[in-house]
């Protein structure tokens, strides 16, 4: 048995798993990277953008070799209410400067590239294998089971995504509640690069990212997103699963409604749909975080709930990469002491805190609760769009000064001034 044992088995060739496998292999450790898809990336989807900082520290200027789409130079947040919308648009050319702040990218290609980096570094990549269970001895994880086959290792890194089978099998995670996760649906809509450039005011290499808050579809609360790729647009909606069930709304139909709204239709006109995908997003942050490690096992990426949505930024991939890095480093330290017990792996938590992963999740721990506030998706977008519309309307009616307009709008919105101040204070402190 001993000669068949490898140092680490990493389950899931997404950004967390491939980063962990890459770093372990690069330092000369034996590592097997197991992926259930026939190719890495073919099971993976997300909104559409990765912030560069985490991977840039591991593979400096990775974008020179990685299949990225566009470097994001424009950020837009759009508040929606029926026929009205108000957008805040921000351009910073420095985002597209030498540091390349963030990229739109497509996961089938990108994840395959990152897994290939791990393979090049010496990891053994095994695709088309669904891991069914852990192998345990005396309460310690010592390997994995896939069908009839067992593979043994000093440590297993569970990077098997939001629905992590392994974190549950290990007793580190329990089932989550509907209100803790969101369902994202997305379409890839192909458009010529030139058309994208003109519609989003960018050039061939630079892109735009747009988030939508408010009435994205027939009065049901949810959030929308749009990212420009080279020759396509990633357009989607995200709904809290509890809301989805309560409102009796079908996500696929909601996205079709969204596409036909006056705020989106002109942006995608003439495009051709090429793919429809869906995914769960862990949204409750620390509130749904599993135990991060046990005897012989670590949990990383979406499997650990490492996603941070602040309403104006949505991050997952940079957390996945950094948690994969922390997992790899924790394994190397455990290996140095030949102690893969829970105690030997406990550096993982410290490493996560020393990187930004736990630090950021802890700093923004109240964000999930603030974003659950229904006023954020309903009354506030209505207030903002209504006020802006009134500001720009000239119709011969008696004059009202700005302060009066604002005061009247707030009164009509049904949000008390005290409530408004409280929400503003909470938002400014928590987000």
């Amino acid at each position, binding site marked *: 048995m001993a000669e068949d044992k490898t140092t680490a088995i990493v389950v899931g060739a997404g950004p967390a798993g491939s980063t962990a496998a890459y770093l372990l292999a690069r330092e000369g450790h034996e590592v097997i990277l197991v992926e259930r898809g026939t190719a890495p990336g073919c099971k993976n989807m997300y909104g559409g953008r990765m912030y560069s900082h985490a991977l840039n520290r591991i593979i400096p200027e990775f974008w020179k070799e990685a299949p990225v789409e566009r470097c994001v130079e424009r950020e837009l947040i759009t508040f929606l209410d029926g026929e009205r919308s108000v957008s805040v648009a921000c351009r910073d050319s420095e985002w597209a400067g030498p540091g390349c702040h963030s990229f739109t990218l497509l996961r089938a290609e990108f994840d395959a590239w990152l897994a290939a980096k791990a393979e090049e570094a010496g990891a053994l990549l095994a695709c088309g294998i*669904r891991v069914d269970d852990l192998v345990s001895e005396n309460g310690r994880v010592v390997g994995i089971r896939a069908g009839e086959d067992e593979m043994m290792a000093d440590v297993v890194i569970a990077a098997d995504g939001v629905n992590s089978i392994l974190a549950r099998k290990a007793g580190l995670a329990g089932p989550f509640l509907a209100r803790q996760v969101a369902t994202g649906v997305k379409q890839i809509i192909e458009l010529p690069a030139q058309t994208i450039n003109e519609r989003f005011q960018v050039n061939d290499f630079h892109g735009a990212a747009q988030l939508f808050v408010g009435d994205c579809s027939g009065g049901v609360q949810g959030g929308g997103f749009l990212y420009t790729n080279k020759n396509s647009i990633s357009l989607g909606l995200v709904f809290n699963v509890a809301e989805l*069930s309560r409102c009796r709304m079908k996500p696929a139909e909601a996205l079709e409604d969204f596409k036909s709204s006056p705020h989106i239709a002109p942006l995608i006109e003439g495009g051709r749909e090429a793919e429809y995908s869906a995914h769960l997003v862990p949204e409750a942050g620390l509130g749904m975080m599993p135990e991060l490690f046990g005897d012989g096992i670590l949990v990383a990426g979406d499997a650990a709930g490492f996603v941070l949505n602040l309403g104006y930024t949505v991050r997952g991939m940079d957390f996945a990469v950094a948690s994969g890095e922390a997992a790899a480093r924790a394994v190397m330290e455990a290996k140095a002491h030949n102690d893969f017990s829970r105690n030997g792996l406990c550096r993982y938590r410290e490493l996560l805190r020393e990187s930004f992963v736990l630090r950021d999740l802890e700093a923004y721990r109240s964000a999930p609760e603030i974003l659950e506030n229904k006023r954020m998706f309903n009354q506030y977008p209505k207030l903002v769009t209504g006020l802006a519309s009134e500001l720009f309307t000239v119709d011969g009616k008696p004059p009202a000064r700005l302060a009066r307009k604002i005061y009247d709008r707030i009164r009509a919105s049904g949000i008390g001034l005290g409530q408004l101040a409280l929400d503003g204070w909470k938002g400014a402190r928590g987000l």
Partner: protein
Amino acid sequence: MKRLSIEQLLGMNKFVVDDEEAHIKVNREVCASCPDKPCTWACPAGLYSVKDGALSFDYAGCLECGTCRVACPNAGSAIDWNYPRGGFGVHFRYG
């Protein structure tokens, strides 16, 4: 742009359907007593429906998101959820 039906949406995707093993199994007895059947709304692939008063489910076309398992009020007993066997299921070309 023309509105697409769920069949047209799923038709764009590449699937390798496992004819031998359903990766999600539904317990129709439990589902029969479920008044709301949120799966029939929440599943992004629209794979759950009510036909002749009984819950009908087709695992081909599954996007493997896991929404049904979370939305189901009887998740422990009504839905036996897993990923498809290795090599089967949806194959995203973009993602």
